[in-house]
């Protein structure tokens, strides 16, 4: 278990979250750093979508999930519920 987790770096997690629309792709260009809270929120959304326990952490279930084969299309547009002073990525508010 621990080696699964260690095999998934924060960078990999970050890229995965951007690639599948849990974080705005714009970070690819702007390199905008996210707060810890934003990262936890994005990971929680991924865990919820993937039907695994929602912990907000890169635990072994999450490390396993992001290495599973999947479709390359994003997991539809989540409303990124960042605080107003940060980037607003969609007209919709968080459901």
């Amino acid at each position: 278990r621990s080696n699964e987790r260690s095999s998934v770096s924060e960078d990999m997690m970050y890229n995965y979250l951007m690639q599948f629309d849990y974080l705005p792709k714009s970070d690819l260009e702007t390199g905008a750093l996210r707060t810890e809270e934003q990262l936890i929120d994005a990971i929680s959304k991924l865990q919820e979508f993937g039907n695994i326990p929602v912990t907000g952490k890169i635990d072994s279930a999450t490390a396993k999930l992001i290495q599973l084969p999947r479709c390359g299309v994003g997991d539809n547009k989540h409303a990124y519920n960042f605080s107003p002073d940060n980037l607003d990525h969609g007209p919709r508010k968080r459901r």
Partner: protein
Amino acid sequence: YVLQGAKWDKTDLTWSLVNQSMADADKIRTMVSRALRVWETNSKLTFREVYSDQADIQVLFARRDHGDGYKFDGPGQVLAHAFYPGVGRGGDAHFDAEETWEFDASNDDSRGTNFLNVALHELGHSLGLGHSSDSNAVMFPWYQNNEVDGKLPDDDRIGIQELYGAKEKVWGPYRPVTTTSTTTTTTMRTLTYYPQQRPTYPNHYPNYYPNYYPRERDREREREQERERERERERERERERERERERERQRKRQHEERERERERERERQRDRERERERNREPLTTTSTTRAPTTRSTTAATRRTPATHPTHRPYNYPTVHRHNKPHKPRKPKPDNCMTSYDAISMIRRELFIFRGQFLWRIGAKGLYNGYPTETRRHWAALPEDFNKVDAVYENQQRQIVFFIGRQYYVFDSVTLAPGYPQPLTSLGLPPTLTHVDAAFVWGYNNRTYLTSGTLYWRIDDNTGKVELDYPRDMSFWAGVGYNIDAAFQYTNGKTYFFKNLGYWEFNDALIKVAHARPKLSSRRWMQCARSVNDVDEEQR
């Protein structure tokens, strides 16, 4: 289920396998047909296979960077992707050719990834379905090797029927009903109903399901196979007709090309005639002769935006220039009713390019006597260029012009040594025919090139495009594809242009500052508002 918003405005769709020559082409076509039949059985949709690049859904096997801005990653993780309904590549489904695909529907994953499952999922995107978090659904993002033939999980079935409606039930004398099986869990037997054929069976049992009685099922399966063979023959005939039409189109295109070539030859002939005429007549107009420029010795040593060979890497014909005024072959564009081919700040003045002409706008507005021919300033540009695709001032304050597959770097008005060069020398793909826009983004002061649906970023150290590009233009949210031009204005903001309008880009929100484009002529050419123009500000 998630409806992504885009959907087809028709229900009879065509599809085509692009890689007809690959080893398992026949199996792939059979599997794609089976996957489409699942969507067809559960909605009003119908699908027809053709072999044409005009088909609504193109099925493509590709590897790594295949030109759509979404690279594959080799074996594992990303298996495939697809585009939601729309024109161009809308609806297309791409599969990673480096995956180990199992084309015989089998539950055994050890032999490879079940292609039928993945095709069913991707074609769901091609029809407008997004990902579902229901792990039993076909549209669940992660690969699952579920038995799918014929049946569709409720989540997907309700989603596709919300988009395109359910199959009309052709009620014969036998009204199928939903029954609950007597097993421990009451399950609703979904209707697998074949409306195109009325059930014909000996016992006329009122709630008969064609595939329910084994003996009848065998006869049914023979009839079905016969129908399938007939459909296959019909498809073959259709493909033959399509190929004949394609050959006809090819002949027509060649004839038109020869016609255009003859026209161009006649045009050149007339030009030579006019040239000879001019040389004979005394020069009546004052010809503007360019001030002799001393070729700056540092020019050759100054870094140029791409590889800077001292020799000309390509045997371009050295062009001899005359100081004679050129009669423009085309009428001057109307600055209050035109789109822009290119736009850029050059030496803190705004230059707007259209056709062979340019406007120059300084602190006091539009200079008199403009538009003028671009080649009056940059005489080294080719004589027969139609239009400038893109212009920008690079970090060394050189002026870079993109025309077709080539680009020209100027030190002020003097062509830098070694230019023009092909776009490929920037690391752009050889298939690229032109650049739409070139600009330095105020947000990070990096140089971007766009073309069609893709964009690249230039690495200022190497002068070439960065490795993990191209990317999809959807990053520039609200701008869309196939733009005309883009530039960074003196206020540090970036503007995108298309047709007669422009968008200001909001760097903080990473999207356009206003969804509706504003009229370019008013803001950039200071044209007065015509009576039927709505004032954007007042709107």
